[in-house]
């Protein structure tokens, strides 16, 4: 079924943040730190403030005087204490940190005024990368911590050390995930207006979680939550980048209150690249013990995570905590231990991006299995089969308390082998090798936690979702949900779910999301949660209504079945009676046909050992890729890619496939071209889309998608789909490229598969290209 949202988006009638012009709209621009680490010795605003068209030039001191409150990560020890004001006070700790806000009649004037500001910085030594941050005598971001380590945590099953010591084989290696950015094509932004008569702040924000943003903005602006309404309009992507509740959004609220003018901040691409949210940088030191059959008997992973400057409202520590809980994936590793050292550096804050800590965990697990295969001289597929969870029991309890409820993983691997043509690809690889070409196959057999509940690790993240479903007197249906589509097509998905449950056509259903004025509370869209949680709430509400409809129908002498389509005349009679003729309702039945459901699957299940199941359900995603690598140039060509997807009940196969194609493209981009780089003095080196290159239509081949759904036990049977492809892909790609180059003895321990990185890895083996042979081989483009 095509999407209902498409007609407006295709015709230029979508309404994104910057499309909300109102009379008297002003614009906000920020003066951001130009240095990675510096004291602010003085700010001279005089020239800027007198520029024609400038309404306000605001510093941290002005905000404080106006009643703005500081933000904090809200984490208890052992996390280091940290709070921050909306604008930097006295010191800046990353390039891009906001220092002064300007409000002016136009964006151009606001930016001119920023240029006229005179901010006197006293430069301090930068701290770039965790190694520098943890070196003895390193300059400290927060001297009161006495270290740059934001937190050090450890966890382990009881027998890791013994199992490692007794293991027939050991491997010890380091694996690195490099820094990338989610990069929605529409950058973040917010627009505020203040109604002094009603004491009401309205904030339109390109935000993934409008209700939580309301909580945070109310807190920062010193307002009651009821005095703030947050509306998330059409969004040009999110991918986690618009999940954190930013200083800028709170500033827009404060500036609207302070100036009394409606005003908008719309980030430009350079702000988005250098001063929003980066993701992924982690190094894992892995110690694994395994037996002769390739079964892992113990895994110990020491994670070092670069948090950047950790001034994110729900702390940037979130992804790292997910990493250390996800190290066994869909594998039956009997013993797992981990440590986490999360380090502050003078770079852009690191936080959420589609996958949220799981790609890094999955990289290590898959790399370990590939290395075991190499050491034992067996097929990496067999090593996976030896380690995948057996079909029973379910749930499978993991070392971190996870209650994995996935389907039959071995059956999925069988499908992967057959549909991908695994053995045929191995055959082609052998042929290519004898012809001097470098083909490789990579595997990723992923189980992913979805619909996370993070009450204990990230403020404002509960495990519920709210839906209000109403059958109107004319028998059309409205659905409001607390999730927020950023392009995933929720208007269509929830309409289909409601239509199916109510027995009406999907065209009868209108879906609204992203508005705190419509629903008491919701949790937004992140963590592959929307179909599971929002869908669960919609299904539950619809079932409740349907039972009421059936009771009314029976009382009227009509038949309304428990399942399947409902007769239009019967529905019309029931709806009219419910709303207009209360005395004809059966006794005890609530009048009207509307209900609001707040739904939780309730699988958090904290246990006495302090562990809890952090995900309401689990999706499985098996990926295989075949690549050809040119060792001379380091270029990688994807020859084939296929995934077998179990996201539970599939509402709309086309949209599920779209999620997988999109995740695949981002995954390829992340590893083949993208990297957020910094100079040694902490200057960002990627400020445009020419420095940070995301894939184009020439770069992304088609992913083949096979559905193998297993319904979950949540209401509706959904499992979630948004992230799996992107979690799975980097590990599969690193595996494939290394496999291609293995005859040369190349070892790849990082997600950087950029041509220079591959060339360096190849040259490190002593191999040198023979230009003549290379030309003769006539490497053609074998994509697609």
């Amino acid at each position, binding site marked *: 079924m095509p999407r209902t*949202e498409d*007609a407006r988006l295709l015709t*230029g009638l*979508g309404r994104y943040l910057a499309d909300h012009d109102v009379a008297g709209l002003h614009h906000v621009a920020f003066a951001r730190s130009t240095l990675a680490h510096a004291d602010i010795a003085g700010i001279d605003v005089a020239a800027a403030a007198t520029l024609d068209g400038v309404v306000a030039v605001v510093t941290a001191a002005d905000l404080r005087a106006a009643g703005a409150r500081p933000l904090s990560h809200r984490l208890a020890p052992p996390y280091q204490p940290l709070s921050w004001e909306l604008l930097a006070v006295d010191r800046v700790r990353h390039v891009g940190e906001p220092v002064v806000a300007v409000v002016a009649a136009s964006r*151009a004037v606001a930016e001119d005024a920023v240029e006229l500001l005179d901010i006197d910085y006293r430069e301090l030594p930068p701290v770039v990368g965790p190694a520098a941050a943890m070196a003895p005598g390193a300059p400290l971001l927060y001297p009161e911590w006495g270290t740059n380590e934001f937190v050090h945590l450890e966890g382990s099953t009881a027998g890791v050390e013994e199992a490692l010591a007794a293991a027939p084989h050991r491997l010890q290696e380091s694996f690195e995930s490099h820094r990338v950015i989610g990069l929605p094509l529409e950058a973040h932004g917010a627009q505020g207006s203040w109604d002094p008569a009603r004491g009401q702040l309205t904030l339109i924000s390109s935000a993934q979680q409008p209700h939580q943003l309301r909580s945070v903005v109310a807190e920062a602006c010193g307002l009651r939550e009821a005095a703030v309404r947050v509306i998330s309009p059409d969004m040009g992507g999110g991918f986690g980048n618009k999940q954190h509740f930013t200083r800028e959004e709170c500033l827009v609220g404060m500036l609207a209150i302070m100036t009394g003018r409606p005003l908008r901040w719309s980030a430009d691409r350079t702000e988005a690249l250098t001063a929003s949210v980066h993701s992924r940088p982690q190094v894992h030191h892995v110690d694994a013990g395994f037996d002769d059959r390739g079964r892992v008997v113990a895994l110990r992973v020491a994670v070092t995570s670069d948090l950047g400057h950790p001034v994110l409202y729900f702390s940037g520590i979130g992804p790292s905590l997910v990493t250390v809980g996800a190290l066994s994936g869909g594998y039956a590793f009997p013993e797992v231990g981990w440590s986490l050292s999360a380090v502050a550096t003078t770079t852009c804050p690191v936080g959420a991006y589609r996958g949220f800590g799981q790609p890094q965990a999955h990289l290590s697990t898959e790399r370990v299995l590939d290395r075991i295969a190499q050491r034992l001289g067996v097929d990496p597929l067999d090593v996976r089969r030896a380690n995948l969870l057996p079909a029973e029991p379910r749930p499978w309890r993991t070392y971190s308390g996870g209650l994995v409820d996935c389907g039959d993983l071995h059956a999925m691997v069988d499908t992967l082998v057959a549909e991908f043509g695994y053995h045929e690809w191995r055959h082609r690889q052998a042929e290519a090798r004898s012809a001097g070409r470098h083909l490789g196959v990579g595997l990723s057999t992923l189980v992913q936690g979805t619909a996370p509940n993070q009450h204990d690790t990230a403020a404002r993240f509960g495990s519920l979702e709210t839906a209000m479903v109403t059958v109107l007197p004319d028998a059309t249906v409205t659905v409001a949900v607390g999730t927020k589509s950023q392009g995933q097509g929720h208007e269509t998905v929830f309409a289909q779910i409601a239509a199916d449950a109510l027995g009406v056509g999907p065209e009868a259903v209108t879906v609204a999301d992203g508005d705190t004025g419509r629903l008491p509370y919701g949790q937004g869209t992140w963590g592959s949660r929307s179909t599971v949680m929002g869908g669960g709430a919609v299904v539950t509400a619809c079932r409740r209504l349907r039972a009421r409809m059936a009771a009314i129908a029976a009382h009227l002498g009509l038949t309304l079945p428990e399942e399947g389509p409902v007769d239009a005349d019967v529905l019309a009679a029931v709806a009219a009676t419910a709303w207009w003729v209360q005395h004809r309702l059966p006794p005890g039945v609530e009048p009207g046909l509307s209900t609001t459901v707040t739904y939780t699957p309730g699988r958090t299940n904290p246990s006495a050992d302090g562990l809890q199941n952090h995900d309401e359900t689990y999706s499985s995603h098996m990926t295989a890729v075949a690549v050809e690598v040119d060792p001379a140039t380091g270029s990688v060509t994807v020859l084939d890619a296929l995934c077998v997807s179990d996201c539970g009940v599939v509402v709309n196969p086309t949209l599920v496939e779209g999620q997988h194609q999109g995740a695949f493209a981002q995954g390829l981009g992340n590893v083949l071209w993208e990297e957020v780089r910094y100079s040694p003095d902490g200057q960002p080196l990627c400020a445009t889309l020419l420095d940070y290159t995301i894939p184009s*239509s020439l770069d992304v081949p088609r992913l083949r998608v096979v559905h193998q759904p297993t319904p979950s036990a949540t209401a509706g049977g959904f499992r979630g789909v948004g992230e799996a492809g992107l979690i799975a892909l980097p590990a599969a790609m690193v595996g494939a490229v290394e496999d291609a180059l293995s005859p040369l003895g190349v070892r790849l321990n990082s997600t950087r598969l950029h041509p220079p990185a591959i060339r360096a890895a190849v040259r490190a083996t002593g191999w040198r290209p023979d230009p003549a042979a290379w030309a003769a081989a006539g490497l053609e483009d074998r994509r697609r």
Partner: protein
Amino acid sequence: MSRPVRLTVNGAPASFDVEDRTTLLDALRDELGLTGTHAGCEQGACGACSVLLDGEIVRSCLLLAVQAGGRTVTTIEAVGSPGRLHPVQEALRRHHGLQCGYCTPGVVLTAIDLLERVADPDEEEVREALAGNLCRCTGYAGLVDAVLAAARDAGPGR
């Protein structure tokens, strides 16, 4: 310092006063309220701001509004309507060639431009034509399918 600019936009005369530094993108959006043209980078790299200038596909963030004086601009607002989609728009809808829709207006105009020039493009030509329109959501598969289908359905001699 503002100066007046007169041009034809979507078939009708239009005029506005803008500073020399104002881009065509900003003028279309802010002066004429044509917000279907999107700012993805304002650096000439993403194609979200694509419009047709005298029938040629251009990036409106790289042009000054004054450069469009006396010329003809076509934006997404002139291409189809929700009730009556252009065949390229209909194909994108049917083949799930969009998710967030932010790149979509630029894609639609670029695809129309391609089909004007090449009656029966193959996949390689479609991918080449769309290479300047970055999309972070779709992975391009649905987008390429859509443009190929639009070419096919329109048939030769469209």
